[in-house]
């Protein structure tokens, strides 16, 4: 038997991955885009009728869609912004040379490792309107004069969802920032100090600029994962009260699997794809950097 050359063996090694990508990612993406131009409902059987952009023009007039988009954007912007700010502060403090900082890094892993659905239930229990510890603590300290039904009011329900996401993810962001902090050479700070730069100047002129690549990567991944929020909502509010906390993913899921409307569901899914591409385009430098990193030989 003839032995393979390195190149042939290389191609051979790619086949399983490419097959999985092709069948379970590339084909589905195009299938979704394709179906977004059709009327295709479970109730009317397997008949697909080409309707051009009708689904899209329906979407432009669909107030439930705009409501979901508004909430998803609000959730994404607030969670990512707050997580990055907290991540910067936490990382700075975790980097101080005191005993016990190793322990803090382990603590960070707890919310990271807990399944989102579990942390959702933990929060739902804590903010319960009658026997939630959240109400109890606020009441005891006199911050509120009666128990608040957090999840039955639009804005408080949104607030709790955002808080629970921050609880779960800010520690993880701080770990990423910490990794960035540790790559900044100490000599830079010493030189700046000799030149008479105070701690605040040093932070803004050395730390932040050098953290930029790490922050950009973290922001990209966080934006995209916040934008697809679904699981935590299932656990906490199920989209309620009304549709106040229904995210785009949740609305799409319901259009697909509750309403059986595959055509319009595909349109909503295609819209999510479009926004994701927009976010990715804002961060082409990050993506390029990662891809070059994958090609170059460095650890």
């Amino acid at each position, binding site marked *: 038997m003839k032995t393979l050359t390195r190149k042939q063996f290389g191609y051979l090694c790619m086949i399983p991955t490419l097959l999985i990508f092709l069948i379970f990612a590339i084909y589905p993406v195009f299938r979704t885009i394709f179906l977004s131009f059709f009327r295709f409902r479970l109730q009317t059987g397997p008949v697909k009728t080409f309707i051009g952009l009708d689904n899209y023009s329906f979407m432009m007039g669909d107030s439930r869609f705009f409501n979901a988009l508004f909430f998803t954007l609000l959730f994404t912007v607030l969670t990512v912004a707050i997580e990055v700010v907290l991540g910067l502060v936490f990382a700075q403090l975790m980097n101080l040379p005191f005993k016990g900082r190793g322990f803090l890094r382990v603590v960070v892993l707890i919310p990271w*490792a807990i399944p989102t659905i579990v942390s959702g239930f933990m929060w739902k229990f804590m903010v319960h309107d009658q026997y939630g510890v959240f109400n109890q603590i606020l009441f005891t300290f006199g911050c509120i004069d009666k128990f608040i039904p957090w999840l039955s009011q639009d804005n408080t329900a949104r607030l709790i969802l955002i808080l629970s996401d921050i609880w779960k993810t800010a520690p993880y962001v701080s770990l990423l920032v910490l990794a960035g902090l540790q790559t900044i050479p100490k000599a830079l700070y010493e030189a700046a100090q000799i030149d008479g730069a105070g701690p605040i100047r040093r932070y803004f002129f050395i730390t932040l600029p050098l953290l930029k690549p790490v922050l950009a990567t973290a922001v990209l991944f966080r934006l995209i994962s916040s934008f697809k929020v679904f699981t935590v909502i299932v656990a906490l509010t199920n989209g309620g009260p009304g549709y106040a906390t229904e995210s785009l993913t949740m609305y799409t899921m319901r259009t697909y*699997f509750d309403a059986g409307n595959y055509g319009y569901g595909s349109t909503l899914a295609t819209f999510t794809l479009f926004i994701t591409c927009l976010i990715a385009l804002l961060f082409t430098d990050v993506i390029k950097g990662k891809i070059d990193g994958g090609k170059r030989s460095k650890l």
Partner: protein
Amino acid sequence: MREEATLQKILFYLFAVFFIVTIGFPFFWQILNSFKMEKDIFALTWFPRSYTTDNYLKAFTTRPLLSYLGNSFIIAAVATICSLSIGSMAAYAIARTPIKGKTSFLILVMSISLLPPIVIISPIYGIVRTMGLLNSYSGLIIVNVLFTLTIVIWFLTPYLHAVPMELEEAAQIDGASPAQAFGKIVIPLLGPGVFTVGILAFIQIWNEYLFALVLNPIRIKTVTVGLKMYESDNYMPWGTIMAAAVVIVIPLITLVLVLQKRIIGSLMTGGIKE
């Protein structure tokens, strides 16, 4: 200067306390309440006189928690192993063979790792249904392989770059084929990297909810889907839910605490999850 140091120290420990309390409290509260009787939960008693393990018993008897755990374990373990084998082959091809189209392939991997699952969920549901794999192990395993492959490839490619080429060349001079060199030289050197990324993949699959919900709504439910089953419209058995949640989380927390050094290291070098 000394004053600044003292101030820093005070600041650090204040922060440490705040950090540990805010992060730890929900988890602590979950564990504490899983041992409380329902009347004490309703009465808002923090530390009741007596505790009970009833909730744990109920968690296993009112719903088939043991089979949820078994299902999640089988799916996560098999998908992790598949993903590692397939992914390490692709990473090897990228890092060490002179194939064409590496950049396009890496762009593809990147795009898939950023792709929101909702975009592909309906066609995947169709494919899995056509294959007759709804409510099975295999369907969910394949989908989880897709979403963990990207992490495996990202993580292992730089790792493979770091294995000296000379080792493999030496093996080939001794008459080994590329496949043999891969099996005998590269795989053993990959050990630690494969192990670490395997843990990350396992955690991600264990925690996955969306596809588990859509593909396996009736049989072979996973823990994340199972947890939602304790809820009913007019009654929330909170003690039982907290107990079930503790059981679901224990394997993960154990894994994370035992392997904390590796996990922190890999997260910090940029193995971004989700």
